């Protein structure tokens, strides 16, 4: 009896976390897919991996906040490198993205091997950042995730009119005297924060799916930008909720991959049932 309550409490805590992360990654993912920058999300997520490892090498304990800050820093470093390549070399944009994405992920693996060979007993579990692991999530984590998620949603709601025009018609947006750099940086920053929250649950490899799939699904159902954001958030949240539930019913299935399968199914079904031209 006591075990059941305990289990349910964990279930609720995790479920709130995965649902919230599903919602915010859906909203941000919709924005980045409409900007045709889905691969940026992919690169940022993969590039966060060596950040986690390097943070660990410096602090030598698994302080999750510091590990995630390392992750965020590396996402941003990867973006800067992509932009430098784009500006100063003849390499095509997609090639630059692929190069940085796999290069950073490879670096992460190398760092992980080094850490594993040092024999630091704290390192157990670092590997979980690849595919995600929720066993270590605490209710205090969920509080932080809730606050950040709500803040992200409020920011998007506040700037929704500007974001819409910025994505649709950048030149016109500029001619009204609005700043492109500001929104560009804001969208990237929010995406990096979502990735930082999400990689613990689904891992750096699968993070892209929960960013991109809800946006793709939403686009099949509506021709309105705001409805796309709302639907995308709902699909992401639904996938987090349902995925967590399935995972708890079948304890041998880990949460991250299940969420990704659910959200991908939502996207595939939506594409087949496509409502809008």
């Amino acid at each position, binding site marked *: 009896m006591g075990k059941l309550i305990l289990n349910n409490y964990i279930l609720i805590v995790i479920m709130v976390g995965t649902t919230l992360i599903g919602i915010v990654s859906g909203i941000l993912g919709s924005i980045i897919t409409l900007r045709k920058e889905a691969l940026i999300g992919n690169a940022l997520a993969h590039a966060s991996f060596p950040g986690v490892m390097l943070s660990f090498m410096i602090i030598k304990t698994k302080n999750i906040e510091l590990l995630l800050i390392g992750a965020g820093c590396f996402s941003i470093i990867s973006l800067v490198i992509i932009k430098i390549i784009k500006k100063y070399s003849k390499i095509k944009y997609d090639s630059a993205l692929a190069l940085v994405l796999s290069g950073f992920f490879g670096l992460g693996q190398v760092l992980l091997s080094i850490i594993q060979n040092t024999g630091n007993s704290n390192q157990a579990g670092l590997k979980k950042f690849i595919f995600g692991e929720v066993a270590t999530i605490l209710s205090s984590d969920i509080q932080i995730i809730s606050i950040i998620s709500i803040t992200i949603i409020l920011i998007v709601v506040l700037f929704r009119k500007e974001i819409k025009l910025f994505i649709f*018609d950048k030149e016109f947006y500029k*001619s009204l*005297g609005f700043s492109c750099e500001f929104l560009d940086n804001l969208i990237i920053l929010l995406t990096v924060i979502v990735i930082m929250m999400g990689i613990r649950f689904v891992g750096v490899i699968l993070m892209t799916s929960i960013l991109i799939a809800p946006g793709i699904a939403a686009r099949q159902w509506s021709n*309105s930008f705001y409805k796309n954001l709302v639907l995308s958030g709902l699909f992401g949240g639904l996938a987090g909720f349902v995925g967590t539930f399935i995972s708890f019913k079948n304890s041998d299935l880990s949460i991250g991959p299940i969420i990704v399968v659910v959200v991908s199914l939502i996207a595939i079904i939506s594409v087949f049932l496509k409502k809008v031209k």
Partner: protein
Amino acid sequence: MESAISIKNLTISYDEKKILSNINIDIPKGKLIGIIGPNGGGKSTFIKGILDIVKNSSGNIKFQGEYYKEYLKKIAYIPQRDTVDWDFPTTVLDVVIMGSYGRLGLFKRPKRKEKEMAILMLKKVGMEKYLNRQISQLSGGEKQRVFIARALMQKSEIYFMDEPFQGVDIKTEKAIIKILKTLKEKNKTVLVVHHNLETVKEYFDYLVMINRKIIAKGEIADVFNKENIKKTFYRDY
């Protein structure tokens, strides 16, 4: 002659390459002005430089004595049609309402007043039937009409249009030119980047001929001649 825009020593570089150099011109107010020149001659850059969309420009630009930042609510701009993502999830009405965003400013939402005004503007361009249509389903001419309606929504003093007749049907072209002439009659200034030399005389009353610098400027009758056309389009660099 009253001037709408006064430009002094404008130079625009892109990646350290000079696109336009040493532009000095007074754009007259209340005229329909054509901007012509060869591809890559800097016509679009000229407009974008004036509108502060392209940076790296040096020089002094004043709009009836005011700087761009002070004057920008009285400026409407229609970018080239293919710079926009037409698959973006939005409707005809929504795009026209975007014309009110500048006046609304940050965070403020368009309300019923803006919606009603947008419908009125759509009527002016003959697109009121397509109100709720997804923009990806419009033809080239229809897209351009929507853009014109959005510009009208801005209720501006100066209108900048980048190749508005590119790839539109002849009926739309005539409809647009009629609207532009109405704006001129209301003493608004309209600048149009244009490439069809055959219609220059019919459409405009003032001409700016550009190829990396201003080759000629003035009333159509004074500057639109063989010599200037040759200088603008066939000059070797």
